[in-house]
Structure formats: C-alpha cells, structure tokens
C-alpha cells in the first residue's frame, strides 16, 4: 500500500466519494478510506431478506437528481447511473378509504387535491409554480454554497423586495413551523397532512419553528423523487468509478484510528492496523463530529472551547426511523384504489396520517421516547419501478415509521427485544390498507431498528440519519457548530465534508460540494466545474 497522498478522505459515503472524485479530477493524488467492507455509507443495498431481493438499507429516495451539480460535473450518467422517476410519486391513503396522489404531472396532482378542496388545488398550483421557478436559484443560494447567516439571507430578501413579489416567500418564515405555513395557505386537513408528510420524509418535522423557510423549496421539487436503478448502492459504485478513473484510490476495511497532527496541521492518518498514511495537502473527514474531534484527533489539537461545544452543543434529530424490509410475492393492492386507482402505482405512500395534528402528536410521543399509539408507516415498493431489485414476479417492500432512538423504557438496547414485535405492527398497519398482503404474500421480512442504524453506520450517532438536527438552531452557519460551519476546522489542513455540515444529510452531495469550494480556495485549485 502506498503511504503518501495529496488528500486523505475519511469515509466513503456519497460525500466522501464526491469530494474525492472532484479532487482527483483536479489532479490531486487522493485516497478515500472506508471502515466497512464496501464504499457507500448510507448508499448500501443488501439482500437483507432472501437472495435476489435488493433492499436499500438507508437511502432510498433521491430527490436532487438533475439538481445537484456533481451529477453533471462527474458525468454520473456516463458511468452508468440510471434513475427512474415514478409517474405517481407519492400518495396519502386515509382511514376512510380516500386517497390523495402527487404526480409528475401537475394537472393530475391538482385534480387529486381538488377532490378534497378546489381552493387548495389552486393554491398548490400557485405554490408549486412559484417554487418551481426559483428552485434552482434557492438551491444555488441555500444548498450549493457554503452557508450564509440567516440575518444575511433575510436582509438580501428584503433589499430585493422578494416578499412583495412572492405569495409564499416571507422573512417571517424563519420563525414559523411548516404547520403554520400550511394553516396560512391551505384549508383541508388531508391536504395539509400530505404536504406535512412529504416534509417529514425529507427530514423536516412540521412542528419545528423555522423550517417553514425551507418549505417552498421542498414543494418546488415535490415531484422529483427518483429511484436509483439497481439499488442506491449503484450511485456509490459510479462515484467510485469516477474517482478511480481519475487516479483516486478507495481502500475498504481501513478504519482510521487517529488523525496525525504536527504543529497544528493535519498531516495524515493512522489506521487501526497501525498503517500510517501521510497527507501532503489535506485531510477531510466525512464522519461525525464526535468521532472526528473526540476520537480521531489528539485532544491537545482541539481547542478547549470547541471540545466543550462538541461535548455539549451538538444537536441530533430527536427522532429516528424504524424500518421493515420485506420480500413479497405480490405488490400491495390498496382498497383506496376504488377511490383513486393511481394509489396502486404510487411510490411513497403515507399510510394513514390524515391531519397535521396526528403528525404533531406522534412527534411529541417519539421525542418523549415512546412509540406512537397507532402505527402509520410509509410504504414503498421499489420493484414496481425497477424490476431488477427482486426475482422475476416478486417484489421488495420498505416500511418506515418515525420512532425514538432511545426508548424511554430500556433505551436503544430495548429495540433488540422489540424489533420483531414492532415490525409486525407496521406490517399489520400496511395490511389494513392493502388486505391482499396477507402472510402468504409476504415471503420474508426483517426489522431494521433505530438502534441498528449506528451499529452499521457509526457516524449516524443516535440513529440520526440526517447527521444533525434539522432545526433553526442547527441550520446554515450554525451547523454543526458555528466554529465548524464553513467546512474548515481549527486544525490547519483538516476539513469537514460530510452530512454533519450544511445543509444536512440526505443524498444532496452538498456538504462535499461546498467543502470543495473552500478547499479549492485554500489550495488554489483551478475550479473546472460548472457554476451552480
């Protein structure tokens, strides 16, 4: 193994691979180090149930396709990456047998909403049209740039008079919840429930103050949910391919135990097996803040104030996800199809939330460490859109339910006892809406609990799949901590480039892309990539 590189990147999730690929294309000699046996981090696709059934263990929904700059810059399609954008993107199915569907065709979405409220359908059309117009501008401003402060953003909104020109953007959104936004603009509880559900699947809880600021952006890409053909891991694979084609190296089973620091500068890493690797120009960590600053760095290299902040100020999502992965012999046939046949063609399905109040109650319950009284998971059958993920004539299924990481009664370890019990409850909830999914249709299933998340992916601390709370207090130039928000660290040559950074987790590529801008500035690299 070579032992000297220009750039050493810790972690091969999509951010680590993306940063590595860009830097390799800049001509740097790059190595990406991965603790696990394969690259990808949250982009892992495994045969969890039976052979031939490919389950996306973590990342399933890719909503930044054709929006994230790396996809074009790194020619991911040219490397074989393929997406499917289901025509019926989402559905909410309600206990009374009615349903609402979101389509790639705006007219069809509005027609579905109009069955509940014509006024809401018209409001949605205006909101979508407005938001779709500025989605690229907002992405360029809010996501694919190192973060500004909320004060700077709101001042600019004011100077440009955006509030006067927009029906939906407003400075006051920075203090409001998504619930408030929905109450101001929409009337029907089910319409509001569906839009809030959509935000929740994106990681934005509808009762958290300040998240209304992001809501128009979420709506602007509400019809851009894409499935990675062959499984989400395929994205990791093509990123690796681009890295390798430009001379970069990926080493798996290479756990970093220490970042070497000399005279206040990161100069390399030491692997768990004692191997020492030297970094001529930079080390970038895409793992969590706790590991980076409490375990990997020598403590004398971490300023006391930062060490204290890492100890006390980091904010993690106070909710996690409980998943059930299923192997099935048939897809769900929903009773609500008699109301709206398109529900059987929908990808992401909300099973039962019919009001924002129901969602709010579950957020409160989950944050207290308890399980919601009624299971209302969301369901997805990827095989409907990518038949390659299951044996012919068979289907994979995914159920996800918001849940606490640490159960009030027993902590995270209690999940080991409860996983199968709770998985069964989630399946029963699905069967209530799709009675054909009797036990004969379900060949096998496995629970994947909040406690399993950090066991597999250590950087998702406390089952925090967004790698940091999505909230006003942990947003923009305050994420993950004010002193780390611009991707630089107090240790020269050490950068943070993972989902702990602005904007957040999800397959956005943005933390790596933004860290790249900072690294390019610091190292004087020529920026060959296209402007946002």
């Amino acid at each position, binding site marked *: 193994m070579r032992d000297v590189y220009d750039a050493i990147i810790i972690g091969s999730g999509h951010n680590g691979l993306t940063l590595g690929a860009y830097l390799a294309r800049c001509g740097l000699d790059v190595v990406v180090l991965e603790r696990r046996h394969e690259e990808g981090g949250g982009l892992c696709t495994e045969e969890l149930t039976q052979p031939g059934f490919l389950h996306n263990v973590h990342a399933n929904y890719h909503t930044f396709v054709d929006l994230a700059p790396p996809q074009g810059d790194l020619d991911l399609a040219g490397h074989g990456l393929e997406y499917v954008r289901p025509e019926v993107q989402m559905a909410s199915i309600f206990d009374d047998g009615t349903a609402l569907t979101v389509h790639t065709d705006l007219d069809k979405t509005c027609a579905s909403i109009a069955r509940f409220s014509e006024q809401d359908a018209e409001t949605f059309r205006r909101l979508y049209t*407005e938001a*779709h*117009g*500025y*989605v*690229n*501008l907002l992405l*360029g*401003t809010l996501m694919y*740039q*190192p973060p*500004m402060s909320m004060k*700077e*953003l709101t*001042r*600019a909104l004011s*100077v*440009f*008079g*955006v509030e*006067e*020109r*927009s*029906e939906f953007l407003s400075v006051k959104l920075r203090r409001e919840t998504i619930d408030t936004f929905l109450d101001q603009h929409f009337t029907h509880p089910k319409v509001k429930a569906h839009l809030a559900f959509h935000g929740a699947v994106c990681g934005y809880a509808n009762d958290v103050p300040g998240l209304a600021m992001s809501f128009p952006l979420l709506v602007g890409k509400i019809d851009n949910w894409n499935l990675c053909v062959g499984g989400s891991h395929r994205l990791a694979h093509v990123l690796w391919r681009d890295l390798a084609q430009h001379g970069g190296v990926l080493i798996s089973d290479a756990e970093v135990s220490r970042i070497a620091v000399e005279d206040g500068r990161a100069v390399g890493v030491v692997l768990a097996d004692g191997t020492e690797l030297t970094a001529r120009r930079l080390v970038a960590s895409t793992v969590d803040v706790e590991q980076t600053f409490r375990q990997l760095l020598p403590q004398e290299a971490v300023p006391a104030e930062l060490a204290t902040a890492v100890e006390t100020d980091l904010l993690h999502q106070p909710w996690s996800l409980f998943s059930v992965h299923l192997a099935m012999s048939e897809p769900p046939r929903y009773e609500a199809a008699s109301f709206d046949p398109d529900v059987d063609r929908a990808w992401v399905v909300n099973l039962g939330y019919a009001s924002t109040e129901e969602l709010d109650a579950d957020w409160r319950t989950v944050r207290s460490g308890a399980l919601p009284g009624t299971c209302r998971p969301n369901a997805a059958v990827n095989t409907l859109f990518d038949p390659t993920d299951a044996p012919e004539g068979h289907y994979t299924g995914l159920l996800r339910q918001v849940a606490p990481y640490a159960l009030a009664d027993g902590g995270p370890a209690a999940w080991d006892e409860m996983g199968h019990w709770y998985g069964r409850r989630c399946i029963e909830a699905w069967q209530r809406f799709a009675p054909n999914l009797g036990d004969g249709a379900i060949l096998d299933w496995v629970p994947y609990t909040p406690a399993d998340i950090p066991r597999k992916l250590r950087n998702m601390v406390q089952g925090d799949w967004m790698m940091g709370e999505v909230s006003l207090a942990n947003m923009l130039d305050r994420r993950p901590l004010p002193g780390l928000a611009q991707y630089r660290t107090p240790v020269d040559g050490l950068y943070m480039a993972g989902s702990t950074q602005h904007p957040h987790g999800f397959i956005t590529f943005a933390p790596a892309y933004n860290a790249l801008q900072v690294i390019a500035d610091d190292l004087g690299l020529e*920026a060959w990539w296209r*402007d*946002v």
Partner: protein
Amino acid sequence: MPDIYSTEWYDAVREAINAGVGQLRSVPEGRFIVAVEVAGDGTSPYVDEDGERRFLMEIDDGICLWYRELDAGEDEHGHVEGRIDYRFRGPATVFDEIAAGLVDPVDVALRGTISVRGDMRLLLRNAEHVASLLEAYTNAVSTTWPLGRPPYAEPTESRQMAEGRQTAGEPEGAAARA
C-alpha cells in the same frame, strides 16, 4: 438615444452604474466579473434566433471599470482570469423588456426565466449594489424605442406573464411594478 446593446447604450449604463455608487451605504470591496448571456428567441431583433450575445463586465469596488461584448465563439477567459463571479442568462426578449422597464428583473429571476449562476453569497451580501446595477439597467438609460417599448408587434410571453399578475390577486406592490 442609443440602440440597446450598442456601445453607446452600454456606455450610458456604465455611467449610470458608476454614478449610483456614491449613493449606496455599502459597496462590494474588490473586483468581480459579471457575465450576461442574451439568448436569441426569435422575437427580439437584436439577437439571431439561434444565436446569443455575450457580455462581460468588471466591477471593482463597486465601479464598472469596463464592459465588453464577446465575438461569437470567443473564449471569455481571453479577457478575464479565474472564474466569472455571476452569470445571468435568459431570452433576449426578457432582457429587452427589462431594459425597457416593462419586466421586473427580480421577478424574472424568481421565476427562473433568467438564470443566475455563480457565487450567490457575493450576490446576496452585495444585494444593495446588485439592486443598483439592476436599476441602472432597467430605468437609467433610454433607448431608441418609442414609448420605452421594444419594437415588437405583439406582447411577449414574459410581458403577458407580468401583466397577468396584476389581475391575479398579487400584492399591490408587485402589481404596481409590473
């Protein structure tokens, strides 16, 4: 009065920009490069239907030092080193109508009709200066057009959109501007 995109017109815009700098509370420090790409759309007579006109401008401490129209196919990096800080691109008709004061430039940026690329932090942090640039482009310089209107026979889509907003229950401020 000059034709739009003519040397005389751009000189007048530049003078208007520079005259406005003294009125600003803050101006951006340092140098940055702005690119404007005006794409032919078959309506504007100033740009070939399938062609484009590209302009570069250097701003230094808020002052427009120079502007330049590039020849077809000319590499912009023959004139500037490093990256373009902002790049505006859109249909010629929309740029024409912005210059005529018929279409609001922030509106069309919000609609995505004109794309804005580049360092958005710089753009937002210097919002006041950018607003003054837009003001100079929009209202400061007259053209040969009669009554401030481009010489098109029919209202274009962008103008129809802008005018349509006046009857769509938009806030009064927006309607007044449109």
